[in-house]
């Protein structure tokens, strides 16, 4: 095959990350908007109909681009007292979007920040949303909220025109008021609504304020709810309570794949405790958490286990297992081919072939999964920390055979997720227990449950073959990723002859989304291999990358990182230096790492410099915070994080057995933000971590001459 990639290649290019696919259900019950408006009382309600493009993100299910815009993407309410409430189906997990979205509304509406409240992730109140993942909040939701806020501002200006009979061009909206400068008159937004209930629906028309006119956005402001957090007042799901609350506990199987043979609950005081045995689900609830834990311990269950792989054989297993068939058209199975790798390699003076692996790792959010479920009059309400409130509503509706309008999911700002809380396990379990108990039930997973029964970032194997001219110019590139995913699989370097293929596999462990997805694994393999080619050619790592790179945005961050890092570095004994670059989800980055080799073979990361570009910067300080956080999280997976398992039993089931980065692990972090106000903003919560591992691995090679091709690199120091 030669020339343009075949259609299957296109599919690969376009495929959304498979672990983030969340197909909406086939039917949909419209929210009764009149009811909703009544609930809000007087004031102005503005809704924005979803446009075709952002509709994929929020507001639309079914109906293609040609169908009428019946879905609402965002809405906003200006109350008579001037309070502004904006509604979004997005949720806050620590990405600071409550702040950045509030900033966007303030900016567009020209209202003071403290007057704006954001209602997030409540399936009864907020518009439908696929979920908060994939770094899409900033690019899409911020634009939608800007639009609804702009429409509200225009409506308020209209009201002032009618009221004062003045020329519209003489009016200005600012700081929550409409001002008529010639006459010196001004009215607060709330006053303009005069207590009437006004409803406007506007079509999506993406013409938000240009970056140059941003006033609140583009600046660093502290988290809008920082005070609630530092006082402990904010209630995470695990902190909630309800009148008559009971506490739940689930009995977990002894290993993955185990099925329940029999259950003996005779030891449990069923006058005090409610026991549920439903298929393989066994759980209890009781008036106190202590009683529930005690009762769970009194259950005698007999489980049947089946042979399961252990971590020692996982990579062979992944390569041997036949490809998973995901759907009818076999998405993800096609290779993307251009030119001929075989011919180009045959002619290449430099030929390399290597295999790279990444272990399963755990998200381990500090707040474990939790849910509080309450049944009342046939309606189920569940508070839970999930990145997909509407998806979890569907899961609940299906689990309990309810229509979706009988289920309400509310997501309090949550103790993080990193892609690990897309599902509703705890929600379903709590609801099942609550139904049996006749009480609201709160279920908070233990740390051990969170480590063993949540899903993991997938493990994977990546096989790379390359061919290059003697000066390091690549001529052939073959890249096969097994299991872990297709994100970031394409190389940004220019290589004429390429074969790139993702091989989905049925994973023995439950796996799913993770911050940055497979981009971490694919960047690790690619950027390590780039270093190997550079070494083989005897070319400097920066120079070798530049030689193969046309993409101006990657070049820009690479140069910015190299400059800040001081590349080429001057040599110090027992120190090593490494580089990596890449692009994913519309952002661009390059990372430089400096490591030291400690006596005894330990590796210490001394310095990480990341240059990051994600278009226009909305809030520089929060962006920096996200980039730093991602680098620190990347450090764990790079150096020591790995899920260990033996016959289907997770043995790394607590923090004393699963090491995560701590204060003393944190190197000097240097973030260079490359601002491109001329470009739309891309999300930034994930991508900054993808170059950490290869940069460190390359630095370790630089210091020691040992090439490490598995993540984590040094779970117990350098290999002896």
């Amino acid at each position: 095959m030669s020339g343009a990639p075949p259609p299957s290649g296109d599919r690969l290019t376009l495929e959304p990350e498979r672990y983030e696919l969340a197909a909406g259900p086939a039917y949909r019950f419209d929210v009764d908007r009149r009811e909703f408006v009544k609930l809000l009382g007087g004031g102005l309600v503005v809704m924005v109909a979803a446009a075709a493009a952002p509709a994929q993100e929020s507001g639309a299910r079914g109906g293609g681009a040609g169908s009428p815009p019946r879905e609402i993407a965002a809405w906003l309410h200006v109350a008579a007292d001037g309070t502004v409430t904006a509604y979004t189906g997005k949720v806050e997990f620590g990405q600071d979007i409550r702040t950045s979205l509030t900033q966007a509304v303030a900016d567009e509406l020209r209202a003071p920040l403290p007057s704006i409240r954001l209602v997030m992730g409540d399936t009864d109140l907020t518009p439908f949303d696929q979920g908060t993942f994939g770094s899409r909040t900033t690019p899409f939701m911020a634009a939608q909220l800007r639009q609804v806020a702009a429409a509200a501002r225009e409506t308020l200006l209209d009201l002032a025109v009618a009221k004062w009979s003045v020329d519209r061009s003489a009016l200005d909206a600012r700081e929550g008021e409409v001002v008529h400068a010639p006459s010196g008159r001004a009215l607060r937004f709330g006053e303009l609504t005069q207590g009437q209930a006004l409803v406007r629906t506007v079509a999506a028309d993406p013409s938000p304020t240009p970056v140059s006119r941003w006033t609140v956005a583009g600046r660093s402001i502290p988290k809008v709810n920082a005070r609630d957090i530092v006082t402990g007042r904010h209630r995470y799901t695990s902190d909630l309570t309800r009148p008559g609350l009971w506490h739940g506990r689930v009995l977990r199987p002894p290993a993955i794949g185990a099925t329940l043979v029999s259950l003996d609950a005779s030891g449990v005081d069923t006058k005090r405790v409610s026991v549920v045995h439903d298929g393989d689900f066994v759980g209890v609830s009781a008036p106190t958490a202590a009683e529930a834990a005690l009762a769970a311990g009194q259950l005698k269950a007999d489980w049947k286990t089946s042979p399961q792989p252990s971590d020692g054989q996982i990579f062979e297993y992944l390569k041997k297992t036949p490809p998973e068939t995901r759907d009818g058209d076999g998405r993800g199975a096609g290779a993307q081919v251009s030119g001929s790798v075989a011919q180009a390699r045959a002619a290449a003076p430099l030929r390399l072939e290597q295999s790279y692996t990444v272990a399963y790792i755990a998200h381990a959010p500090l707040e474990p999964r939790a849910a509080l479920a309450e049944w009342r009059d046939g309606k189920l309400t569940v508070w839970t920390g999930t990145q997909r409130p509407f998806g979890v509503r569907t899961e609940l509706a299906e689990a309990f055979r309810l229509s979706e309008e009988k289920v309400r999911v509310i997501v309090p700002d949550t103790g993080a997720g990193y892609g690990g809380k897309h599902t509703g396990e705890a929600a379903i379990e709590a609801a099942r227990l609550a139904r049996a108990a006749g009480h609201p039930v709160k279920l908070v997973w233990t740390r051990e449950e969170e480590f063993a029964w949540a899903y993991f970032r997938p493990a994977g194997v990546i096989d790379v073959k390359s061919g290059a001219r003697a000066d390091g110019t690549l001529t052939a590139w073959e890249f096969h990723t097994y299991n872990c995913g297709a994100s970031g699989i394409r190389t940004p370097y220019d290589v004429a002859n390429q074969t790139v293929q993702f091989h989905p596999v049925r994973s023995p462990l439950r796996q799913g989304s993770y911050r940055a997805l497979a981009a971490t694994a694919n960047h690790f393999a690619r950027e390590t291999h780039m270093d190997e080619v550079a070494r083989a050619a005897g070319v400097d790592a920066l120079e070798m990358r530049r030689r193969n790179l046309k993409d101006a945005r990657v070049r820009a961050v690479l140069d910015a990182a190299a400059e800040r890092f001081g590349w080429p570095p001057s040599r110090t004994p027992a120190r090593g230096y490494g580089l990596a670059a890449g692009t994913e989800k519309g952002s661009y980055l390059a990372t430089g790492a400096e490591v030291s080799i400690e006596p005894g073979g330990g590796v210490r990361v001394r310095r990480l410099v990341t240059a990051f570009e994600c278009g226009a910067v909305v809030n520089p300080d929060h962006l920096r915070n996200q980039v730093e956080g991602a680098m620190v999280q990347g450090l764990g997976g790079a150096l020591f994080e790995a899920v260990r398992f033996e016959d289907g039993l997770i043995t790394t089931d607590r923090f004393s057995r699963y090491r995560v980065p701590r204060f003393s692990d944190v190197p000097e972090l240097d973030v260079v933000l490359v601002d491109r106000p001329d470009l739309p903003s891309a999300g930034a919560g994930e991508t900054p971590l993808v170059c950490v591992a290869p940069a460190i691995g390359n630095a370790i090679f630089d210091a020691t001459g040992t090439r490490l091709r598995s993540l984590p690199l040094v779970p117990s120091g350098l290999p002896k």
Partner: protein
Amino acid sequence: MPLLELQINGVSRRLDVDPERSLLSVLRDDLDLTGAKYGCGEGQCGACTVLVDDRPTRSCLTKVASVAGRPLITIEGLERSGQLHPVQKAFAEADAMQCGYCTPGMIMESVALLRRQADPAAPEIVHALEGHICRCGTYDRIVRAVRRAAEATKGGTG
């Protein structure tokens, strides 16, 4: 069961609880003081940290009976007539959080540190907080926040 007397945030509470239970579960489930968080239950993460006799204590590993009659301070007890404690203020201003779940524990540990040592250098802060996990990776900012609080309280009260 005998009544236990707890001195929490300057208020005396008499409770009828199993003395073997953890202080963390009593605070959270019985007293609805949910600022102290559950993160691991094994003393590894620090999210449950409260002050007992001014000393940072992992409430998940502390039997409630063992703190009877001793002064306890939780994150809810730091504010003084609507004024944030300087450490709380510094965390908010330095944006030393993302999801914020680790924040109360970090703040309590830092308050204790500043009471012991008014002006700790960064490595001393790292040493004092090493037992706390911030999975969101805001470590650098937390160190900066503690430095900021130390600056702000120089010569004053911690």
